[in-house]
């Protein structure tokens, strides 16, 4: 059944409008998630969106473990897993032969799976439902931002509505207005990077099928000669098919059902399906040089865009929210605004990692003529015969949270929990460790008692096999300071109150 779009109620804004602490432009996954994060920290926001329905067409479908953990902290993670199709294995074929496969979660004992596939419109629907439970959030549909002016005191947005324009005054603006960001344009900011001269047909089809819950990718399959293809299973008997078309393809023509249907028939081997959504895309890898421009902060696709093979767009955007929410909430509550520089630094670092991975994949899939294509074909030709070539086959390096370069990595405790990384999950006698982390700083005392530290909550846990493997290694015990975004800020085998206090204070320092 096609997704039933229900328009959200458009409520006229009473003018003059009250002054806001935070205005979020764009109610995509990033803007909505940020509003929830801020509200959970006690900070009010208004969300302005030029539309009044969730994402038209599915776009993002693959949500990573880290995104699910973030969405869980925001209150909708379990719902996404319940509705979504869970998968962890990806298989890559060359001319009918499997040449490479990966298992993204070989190690059990995590609340969230490696990935679920779930249409973006469901994720946005759940986020909107969650927003509506939080009185600190005001959602304003059919509010298009058309102007921005800022000074040292705040920002004034010009907003067009069905009732006419009004001025929205706010201390902070977060631009979550997507890849074609109007705010980016209005501030005249460069969006540097590369465009790939390649076109992809992206289609969602509804069919009864018994395809496995795995990601399947083909280079040069018989059903689509010379090009590549990707198949993903989604809920509601919907399948995502990506077909590479080449740069010469005519996007208008290729969108027509009479062109699309025969291509898909060949890919799935029958004609018993319904076309749900079709689009032809050209992909880009670009980012803003900086994400913080005085009182206007960029997050999600407005700040960076990647090609989707690797699912690093939406997943990267949710990690922006994670890194920004607690800091912006802190600033609204009176902390030094300079701490936003740490958001800028961390997420530019992460964006570079995502851009690097996505552009490498795109080049492998769509090599330039000459040496690039020769080596790509050589890798594929060898992969069937020699195992060394298989890890070189690149059909997408799937989104993983980046580890921020924080000091204190080499202290003999496990590398997977070094400062800057997401605190690893672990099963507890009741529930999961990850459920107890986040929203505020926390001191984890593992296998020992922790000294009292003013203004710092503590959680003491016994040594279990997972805690030992993921947090302790050979150490008998350890203390971990966890940030509100569940990132390890600092860790010690043992530490006194002053040391821990200093690390807590450093969370709010722009240099941390």
């Amino acid at each position, binding site marked *: 059944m096609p997704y039933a779009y229900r328009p959200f109620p458009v409520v006229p804004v009473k003018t003059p409008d009250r002054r806001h602490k935070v205005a979020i432009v764009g109610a995509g996954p990033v803007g909505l998630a940020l509003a929830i994060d801020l509200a959970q920290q006690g900070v009010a926001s208004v969300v302005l969106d030029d539309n009044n329905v969730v994402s038209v067409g599915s776009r993002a479908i693959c949500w990573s473990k880290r995104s699910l953990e973030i969405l869980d902290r925001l209150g909708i993670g379990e719902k996404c897993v319940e509705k979504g199709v869970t998968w962890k294995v990806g298989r890559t074929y060359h001319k009918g032969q499997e040449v490479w496969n990966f298992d993204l979660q070989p190690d059990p004992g995590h609340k969230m799976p490696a990935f679920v596939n779930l249409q973006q419109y469901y994720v946005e629907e759940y986020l909107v439902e969650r927003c509506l439970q939080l009185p600190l959030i005001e959602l304003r549909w059919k509010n298009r931002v058309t102007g921005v002016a800022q000074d040292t005191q705040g920002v004034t947005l010009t907003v067009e509505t069905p009732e006419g324009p009004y001025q929205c005054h706010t201390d902070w603006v977060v631009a979550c207005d997507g890849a074609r960001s109007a705010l980016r344009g209005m501030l005249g900011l460069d969006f540097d990077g590369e465009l790939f001269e390649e076109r992809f047909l992206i289609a969602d089809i509804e069919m009864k099928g018994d395809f496995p819950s795995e990601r399947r990718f083909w280079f040069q399959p018989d059903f689509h000669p010379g090009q590549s293809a990707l198949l993903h299973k989604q809920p509601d008997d919907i399948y995502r098919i990506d077909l590479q078309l080449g740069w010469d393809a005519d996007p208008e023509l290729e969108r027509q059902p009479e062109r699309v249907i025969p291509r898909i028939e060949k890919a799935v081997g029958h004609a018993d399906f319904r076309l749900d959504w079709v689009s032809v895309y050209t992909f880009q890898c670009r980012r803003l040089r900086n994400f913080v421009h005085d009182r206007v902060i960029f997050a999600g696709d407005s700040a960076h865009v990647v090609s989707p093979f690797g699912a690093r767009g939406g997943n990267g955007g949710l990690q922006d929210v994670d890194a920004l929410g607690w800091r912006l909430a802190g600033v609204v509550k009176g902390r030094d605004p300079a701490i936003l520089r740490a958001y800028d630094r961390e997420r530019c670092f992460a964006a570079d990692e995502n851009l690097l991975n996505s552009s490498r994949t795109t080049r492998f899939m769509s090599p330039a003529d000459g*040496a690039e294509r*020769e*080596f790509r*074909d*050589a*890798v594929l*030709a*060898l992969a069937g015969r*020699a195992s*060394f*070539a298989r890890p*070189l086959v690149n059909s997408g390096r799937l989104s993983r949270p980046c580890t921020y370069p924080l000091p204190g990595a080499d202290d003999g405790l496990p590398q997977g929990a070094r400062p800057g990384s997401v605190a690893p999950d672990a099963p507890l006698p009741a529930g999961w460790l990850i459920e107890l982390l986040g929203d505020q700083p926390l001191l984890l005392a593992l296998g020992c008692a922790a000294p009292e530290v003013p203004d710092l909550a503590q959680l003491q846990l016994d040594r279990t096999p997972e805690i030992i493997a993921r947090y302790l290694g050979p150490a008998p015990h350890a203390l971990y300071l966890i940030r509100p975004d569940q990132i390890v800020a600092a860790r010690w085998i043992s530490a006194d109150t002053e040391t821990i206090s200093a690390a807590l204070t450093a969370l709010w320092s722009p240099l941390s």
Partner: protein
Amino acid sequence: MTLRTHPNLADPDATYAALLAAHKGLTPEESHALNARLVLVLMNHIGDAETLAQALDLAKKA
């Protein structure tokens, strides 16, 4: 590891002849493809990134 740049082949003429023999009868495209596969095989055999960087450097400068 440092790239070996001193002579390392027991029978240079025979090895060189073997390389030519592998390309015998190939079209230029087939030769390119063979070379590409060969580079990848040897690259993996070497393994060490520093040695490879030196090799790339030497090849580019020659």
